[in-house]
């Protein structure tokens, strides 16, 4: 769940970064017809899957405080949602 929230947050942060920096925008242009959106989503998916595997591996024999992890995931998801909203993204 935390990995999914980080993946969603990464979509928002990468989109914002691409919007603010021409160099980042150009580096995210993985597939020219789709433009930077291809890089934003591909990198975010890779981040999500890598974090998922890493957390699954690190926490496989540990008891984690589920409550705190779930709250962190929902906060990240909410922040990600807000950051994708253009009027809020334009504040940065």
């Amino acid at each position, binding site marked *: *769940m935390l990995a*999914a929230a980080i993946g969603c947050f990464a979509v928002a942060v990468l989109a914002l970064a691409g919007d603010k920096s021409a160099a980042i925008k150009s580096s995210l242009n993985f597939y020219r017809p789709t433009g930077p959106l291809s890089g934003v989503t591909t990198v975010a998916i890779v981040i999500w899957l890598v974090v998922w595997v890493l957390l699954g591996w690190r926490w496989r024999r540990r008891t984690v405080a589920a409550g705190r992890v779930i709250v962190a995931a929902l906060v990240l998801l909410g922040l990600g949602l807000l950051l994708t909203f253009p009027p809020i993204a334009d504040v940065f």
Partner: protein
Amino acid sequence: MELTMRGLWTLVHGMGFGALYMLACSGAIVELTRFTTSRAMPATPGAERFLKVYLIAMVVLAWSAVLTGTYVVYPWYRAVPPPGTVDLAGFPQRLLLASAATSGWHSLGMEWKEHVAWFVPIAITMVAYVFIRYGRDLRNHRQLRAGVLGFTLVSFLAAGVAGFFGAMIDKVAPVQGGEIVHLSRGETK
């Protein structure tokens, strides 16, 4: 009745995968809530298996919607017209940006839709994974259940935003072009 190939793909993306996902998601919210909270409703193995298959179908719909949207329809939407082009009908993004009355559909609508839509497959894939792993035992994990329902609700909200702006943008500046697909022949009156 006929429509263009690009129009057909837009239909498959929006009305096929997108709208079907939204319908399925509203059902999933109800079923997940009932299944994981209602003590009155017996969590039978059959009902659990059905919900697992249902969530997997939603995962397929969500990924199909964002992949066709991003890699099939979106390139047609953002196509750049050759210099000197006067008729922007085949270039929806440029058509919207050409007028102050319509530019918001791109700068707010499409800019929000193209990113927030990707929350949907990520969120619902996680929801399906957790439900397949925990099944009816989710009733005994209150916090995890709240998280799963929260992500399902956000996926519904994100799909709603994407669907609303997709439909509105396609009304103002439709993605059209390509081969003509004949669905049926009518009579002239």
